């Protein structure tokens, strides 16, 4: 199967890659580009571990073909922190112990950031509703929700 050349933007960096038409964005991120922060939990769009944003919209990267990334802008967990430090969401997750095994954490961080970009002052219910597409088997979600509530405050305060 001959490969297709794709030009895209990942975490604000112009990026290009070759991929087979049948490869998902998740596969290319992980195997071709080395962005293993985005995880595979189910490969059928039900667990959210592969969450990324595509032009600002939260998606499951296992459900998108890599060729569809042409001309788009993708953000992964690797793009959250910057040289100055962690994103407030990442910091809040650490301080609230909102992770145990951590496999779902990248997905939750990307999804939470997408929420806060969209709704800077979410209620507990709005957070739970937004994050219902991200499964966690370790934490019971309590500390995750608290971390997002606090991160929302931090982000608003520094805005």
């Amino acid at each position: 199967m001959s490969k297709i050349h794709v030009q895209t933007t990942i975490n604000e960096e112009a990026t290009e890659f070759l991929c087979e038409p049948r490869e998902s964005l998740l596969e290319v991120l992980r195997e071709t580009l080395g962005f293993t922060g985005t995880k595979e939990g189910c490969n059928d769009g039900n667990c959210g571990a592969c969450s990324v944003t595509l032009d600002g919209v939260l998606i499951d990267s296992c459900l998108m073909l890599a060729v569809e990334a042409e001309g788009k802008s993708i953000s992964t967990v690797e793009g959250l922190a910057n040289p100055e430090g962690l994103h407030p969401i990442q910091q809040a997750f650490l301080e609230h112990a909102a992770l145990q095994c951590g496999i779902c954490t990248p997905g939750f961080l990307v999804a939470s950031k997408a929420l806060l970009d969209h709704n800077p002052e979410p209620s507990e219910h709005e957070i739970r509703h937004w994050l219902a597409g991200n499964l966690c088997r370790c934490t019971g979600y309590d500390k995750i929700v608290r971390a997002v509530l606090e991160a929302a405050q931090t982000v608003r305060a520094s805005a």
Partner: protein
Amino acid sequence: MSAGNGYKVIGTRPVRHDGVDKVTGRAVYGGDTRLSGLLYGQVLRSPHAHARIKSIDISKAQALPGVKAVLTGADLPKTGDTIVDLGEGPARLKYMSDNVLATDKTLYSGHPVAAVCASNVHIAEEALDLIEVEYEVLEAVLNLREAMKEGAPQLHPDMTTQEFGEDTGRTSNLATHFQHKLGDPDTAFASADVVIEREFNTATVHQGYIEPHNATAMWNADGQITIWTSTQGSFAARAQTGAVLDIPVSKIKVVPQEIGGGFGGKIPIYLEPIAAMLSKASGQPVKLIMTRPAVFESTGPTPGSHIKIKMGANKDGKIVAAEAYIAFESGAYPGGLVGAAAMCVFSCYDIANGLIDCYDVVLNKPRSFAYRAPGSTQACFATEHVVELLAAELGIDPLEFRLKNSATTGTRRIDGVVYPKMGCKEVLEAIRDSEHYKSAAPSGPNQGRGISLGYWFNVGLQSACTASVNNDGTVSLSEGSTDIGGSRTSIAMQFAETLSLDVDDVRAQVVDTDSIGHTDVTGGSRVTYATGWAAYKSALDVQAQMCERAAQLWEVEVDQVAFEEGVFSSGDKSYTFKELSGHLDETGGPVIGRATVNPDSGVGGSFAANIADVEVDPDTGKVQVLRFTVIQDAGKAIHPSYVEGQMQGGSAQGIGWALNEEYYYNKDGQLDNSSYLDYRIPTSLDLPMIETIIVEVPNPGHPFGVRGVGEANIAPPPAAMAGAIADAIGVRLQELPMKPSNVLAATQASEGQAALAAGG
């Protein structure tokens, strides 16, 4: 900063050592393993619930461009009648090996029959479609009670029932039958004022970890095998792989990568020997990651069960006798978990007379494996139901009834164990004193409250630690307990506390099987307890050696050197730990402390309790959790945030088990719901905040009083939910899950009965 509890580090909530890597996506999990020349493997699985393999033709698969090697069960070493012993008793090697790759029969839909490696995973998947397997489909049995009957399709023609420790010579699907007995239950029942007996069924459920099983292996030209894997036990993985491949463990190194959840399901191996054999055949490293459907179809769920509980009590409120019949699914191979259920079923109560009758049954489902306090949840669901009924019959408040009969120090369990100091009563009292319990129970229509109490015995087993003192006063702490929940930090905290160091000055890492002494699995709620013991003792070893170094420097006898609050002193001379570590080179070189433990005494069990408030939708039977509290005896909470995390996590799993999770098999014995869409675990929208109350009844068998907390918290939730639903709709369900259709049917039946009673 100190915890204000007399400790400097213990009881504080530092950011975990591996935290930054995990929130930035840098942590390397098993599936993230990258090596040059890596090939990708995939596994072909039988679609049949029970079949004989007549032939396998791999030629077309081998010919596909990009395919480097194809394996079947015939390529694994012959097992014959070999018995292996990997720590939990003798097991037929054939059972372990056949579960990795089938040889003569496949025993469940999803049973591996062949494996392929190729230059990419898509080619490997295409190759699977080219493998031609000829099956002779056999009659299957997937129902526990059917499997126990005379004439049921037999999975293992040569498996004979072990009864009371003896081989009966009878072949059947009943692998084991044993009993525990205490006192004289028959007489006690006969004289009891009230006797209540009920029957229960619980469905097969899965641990549900988000990370699929994975293994990467390189079989080097010199015969050394390296395996990178997400595992709950590197040494267990090494031992099992060595047994299946018939290779000495000295030739195998297991490098544990970060692990995305286990809950007991990543203690057995599945892919490691396959990856190794494919690497041998291809000459390159090979990575295999299980697909999500395969995780559900082919890896050990926890046993479904059929349980009968009978309990008798007197008017004064004392339980005088208890009897349990417990039949557990063992899945395709024997060696199941019913023994653990026996150790928990009546273990919250002080009962002088009892009988526990246990059956371990094989049937055409994947081999059952441990799921967080295995057996305790099923047993608790059953026992707590009867306890509530007894209390109601006697007119005694259910919490008071439990307090009156609570197990305590010195209580003898029906399986014979006598309790050392433990916190059963204290956990019950914490229910009574909690804000949740004291608040008014929800009183709207179809709302209710339930409470429950559960237990897990916890284990000790072996752990090792080495601690290398750096010349800046920091310590590199190596341990072998793979970290599934933040344990490396709890281990570092115990080490730091012992030497009055800052926790950030102790760098804890989980290392491979060549780099640390034998360490048993991360399971059984043992890591904070046993590896904590090893950390503590290795800290004392460091302390002793540092005292000797100080003695050298100050030219005094070592018994004239004191160590207190992080400072070494003798007379008017003193060094902080940091200062002294700058002098190691001039006093003989590096200091390395070490310890190995197999705690001979003092594993403390843990009791956990719930208060649950629910509302039932009368039109759909859906149960909404309004409020949920979990109480657990942690002995001593080293890092309270992670103790709370364990309590909340087990509660969430227990709620899923209570309300929704089950395996659905179709009429051909194939799993219909092998995806997260249809095997529906709780989402953030299904749960409220989960309130936690940590009780601390220190375990006298641990330097800081630790009791493992990982598991007991999954035992009580289904029972609490059943109680809350009963309070809401007037029917106490006897089957798990209490899914909407069952709750609705019960609501309607109860309304129907009420209407009849009212003459309507």
